């Protein structure tokens, strides 16, 4: 219990400290601490299961929903393809196919899409997308296509 409280306090003060900083890319240490803190403390809903069944129709629904709201920052492939500012944000937009994202549980991914991750650029989408759409996006995240295979989001190509 004490350990958890201390961790929360430690990570929170770090966040407050960092919030006042210039938007430089985070250092390796910061990334390691924040990744740990997010997985273990900040991102809830670890045990909730995806109610949708893992099939082609579900993944295709997720791909569709993802293309409307998420693709602006994450690219159509979830790997930032064609997103001009992806590595100029602080923290940079992560590849959703990467280990840091894929090691979240389905429930945690749902939570992140619902509530966003403060103070990163990730916004919450609760009510902007329906629960069903969000769960289908979680499904899509588990079946992301080859990086670059879907081209660039239309908004950046004309």
């Amino acid at each position, binding site marked *: 219990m004490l350990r958890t409280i201390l961790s929360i306090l430690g990570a929170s003060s770090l966040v407050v400290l960092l919030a006042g900083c210039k938007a430089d890319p985070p250092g390796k240490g910061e990334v390691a601490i924040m990744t740990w803190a997010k997985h273990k403390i900040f991102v809830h809903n670890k045990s909730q299961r995806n109610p949708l069944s893992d099939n082609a129709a579900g993944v295709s629904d997720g791909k569709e929903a993802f293309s409307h*709201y998420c693709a602006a920052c994450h690219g159509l492939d979830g790997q930032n393809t064609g997103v001009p500012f992806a590595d100029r944000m602080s923290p940079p937009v992560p590849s959703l196919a990467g280990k840091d994202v894929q090691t979240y549980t389905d429930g945690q991914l749902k939570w992140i899409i619902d509530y966003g991750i403060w103070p990163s650029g990730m916004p919450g989408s609760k*009510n902007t997308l329906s629960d*069903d*759409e969000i769960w289908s996006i979680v499904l899509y995240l588990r079946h992301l296509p080859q990086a670059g295979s879907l081209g660039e989001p239309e908004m950046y190509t004309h």
Partner: protein
Amino acid sequence: MGEAHGTPPPPHSPVEDVRMKFKFAWSAMLAALLLAAPMFVQAAAAQPAPRRIEVTAKRFAFSPSEITLKKGEPVLLVLTSADVAHGIRFKELGIETKVGKGQTSELAFTPEKVGTFVGHCSVFCGSGHGGMTLTLHVVE
């Protein structure tokens, strides 16, 4: 002696027999179809016109937002957009229609299951898109 009566008519070959039967069967079927045709026409005419329900979609709600339908009664849902592009999808019922900006589209279906079904807007339309629903109550 028998030869004096000229050539006797050739006996029916088995192939010809089958052909004759086939022809008869065809004629019988054709006749039956012709006789039954008015009944089909009558049946089609007797089917009631689907119940027409007009729904307006406007960011971020459908109006009306709840509809009660009778099981087995054909419905024509006429969806009109009052602003941007929208859609309605009832995943459980496997039906969907999309409607362009300011346009109208139709969705014909017959509810076969009793229950409550929540349809969602199926075209991303902005910040309240996720909460834009139309509820169908299907009763006996």
